[in-house]
């Protein structure tokens, strides 16, 4: 087993954009392109994996007979991942999406053995000639949700049910804090870590706990709709995660940040079919449709909806950036100066809380 050279800097992505001749383009029209998906959860998790699977189904709908999709669900992020990815590559899949961070090194290793297969790894940072990476700027959605929350809170405390202290989650917490405090400087964010992506009971307990401590808006970066249900029964607001969760609490559900992988999956599959697939890094947000907001709750006043929509459109046209300076960390130190925006490198590896978030990052 070898160590592989790492593309640790985002700027080195230039290397990764080198074109590669894809055998997919040369495929006969009658032979469907086999597209493989590796999922970390069950497709029935109603969260992260569920949305990736919706993207897969969109592929089938878009291309019909021209593609044949396969998925393997509940693949552990340890030694098993590499075997499964390799098996997909060996069984004729020419485009493989590996949809969890923990598949990064296994994906890169398998890609070395299968230079004629295009790999797409979600949320990672290592690329290769035939390994592209993609992720979504969910923080754009959290910015919009944060604005609404800042306006809607009466107690000025927003609760955040969090999974694990990784940059992705911390970035979301900070985006909410910055946005909420921009419209309501008294807002504080309480964070409770449940040390799991997926444990409905514990997510519900964490939401209840924070409501008992005076939180009147529940946000979450875990996968189940349990916190929404709690908010509904307790009469507080909530923001859904990954998909529209209003079915689980129509009164409480302010909006939701929706993962929408379909446009990316369709585009990348089309590229392989056309023979134009290239490695690269895609970090899409509102603009590319990867991130969407669920319909706003009718209880939100019109001016707040207008504020939210203005921000959303601003993010699309580039006039608004969720991490625009001045941004202070918890100690009050300026980390992003006025007039500047946080560079992607800082966002990608974010491991500090901004001002207004209670507590410390567990590390």
């Amino acid at each position: 087993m070898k160590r592989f050279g790492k593309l640790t800097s985002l700027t080195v992505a230039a290397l990764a954009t080198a074109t590669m001749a894809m055998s997919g383009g040369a495929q006969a029209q009658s032979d469907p392109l086999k597209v493989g998906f590796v999922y970390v959860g069950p497709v029935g998790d109603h969260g992260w994996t569920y949305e990736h699977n919706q993207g897969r189904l969109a592929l089938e709908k878009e291309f019909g007979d021209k593609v044949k999709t396969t998925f393997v669900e509940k693949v552990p992020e340890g030694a098993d991942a590499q075997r499964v990815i390799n098996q997909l590559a060996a069984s004729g899949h020419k485009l493989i999406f590996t949809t969890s961070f923990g598949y990064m090194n296994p994906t890169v290793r398998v890609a070395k053995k299968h230079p004629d297969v295009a790999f797409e790894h979600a949320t990672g940072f290592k690329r290769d000639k035939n390994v592209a990476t993609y992720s979504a700027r969910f923080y754009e959605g959290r910015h919009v949700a944060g604005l609404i929350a800042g306006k809607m809170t009466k107690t000025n405390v927003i609760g955040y049910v969090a999974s694990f202290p990784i940059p992705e989650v911390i970035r979301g917490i900070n985006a909410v804090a910055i946005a909420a405090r921009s419209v309501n400087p008294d807002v504080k964010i309480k964070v409770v870590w449940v040390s799991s992506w997926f444990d409905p009971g514990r997510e519900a307990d964490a939401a209840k706990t924070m409501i008992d401590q005076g939180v009147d808006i529940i946000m979450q970066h875990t996968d189940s709709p349990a916190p929404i249900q709690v908010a509904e029964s307790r009469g507080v607001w909530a923001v859904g995660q990954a998909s529209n969760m209003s079915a689980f609490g129509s009164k409480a559900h302010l909006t939701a940040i929706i993962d929408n992988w379909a446009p990316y999956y369709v585009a990348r599959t089309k590229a392989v079919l056309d023979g134009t697939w290239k490695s690269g890094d895609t970090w899409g947000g509102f603009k590319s449709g990867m991130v969407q907001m669920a319909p706003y709750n009718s209880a939100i006043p019109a001016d707040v909806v207008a504020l939210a929509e203005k921000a959303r459109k601003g993010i699309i046209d580039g006039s608004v950036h969720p991490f625009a300076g001045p941004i202070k960390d918890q100690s009050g130190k300026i980390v992003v100066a006025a007039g500047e925006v946080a560079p992607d490198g800082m966002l990608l590896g974010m491991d500090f809380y901004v001002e207004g978030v209670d507590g410390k990052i567990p590390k």
Partner: protein
Amino acid sequence: MNVDFIIPALLTIITASTPLVFAAIGEIVVEKSGVLNLGIEGMMIVGAIGAFAVAVTTGDPTLAILAGALSGMALAFIFGFLTLFLLSNQVATGLALTLFGIGFSALLGQNFVGKVFSGLPKLNIPGLSDLPGIGPLIFGQDVLVYLSVASAVLVTWFLSRTRWGLALRAVGENHNAAHSIGFSVTMIRLAAVLFGGAMAGLGGAYLSLAHTPLWVENMTAGRGWIALALVVFASWRPWRAFFGAYLFGGITIIQLHAQGFGVDVPSQILSMLPYLATIIVLVLISRDDTRARLNAPACLGRSFHASG
């Protein structure tokens, strides 16, 4: 620190603990009869989907609760048939039952992901349920919470005061002797296993009907294992299992509160507390208790064949 949150926190603790109470007390009865069923997790998750499927389809909470119990029982029957009639190894069969149950529940649940159920109705006695503090705590729970308390009372009574309870314990202590005085060891054990399955099913039903009224795969998230540990914690006494479940549930909630208050300890360390506390409390209560091991049924885990 504001104390207004204490009553709501206690309410949260009750919901966190109730599934564990059901599963642990059921397993106590099973183990008291001399059978070790490690498949609690599997029976719970099948109980959860069984109850939820019926709840969504019929909208009737009573039928849903029954369905949860019956689903757990159906799975327990597989275990009982294999271990009692075909004398298969109990430990391995129980673990296989968990594998089977998780897969089977996922198959059954495919069409119920994303469906909603309004939850179990809460008791509402005008006047009493509105009393400040104890009102919602004592008079404002759903039926399963009361049933979980009742099960601790009834199982204690059954095991210690009734003839059948005595028979069950006799079978667990010495199956050959029990057999020779005319008890049907296999049938008593099968009844105990089925009861344990029904209780685990109720624990699962509580999760999918009351705690978080929804269905998602793996939603029991390891609670069956905690219930198993609580049986040991309780030295096979139902009331101690009840106490253990509330200790575990209580510390789980308290550590979430501590996080919410911004206690400066990493969350992973705080999350260890329920497990560590259970160990420490067990050490303290079993420290001088040389009888603790004697309370374990002597025939636990041993197969029995009548003419053997």
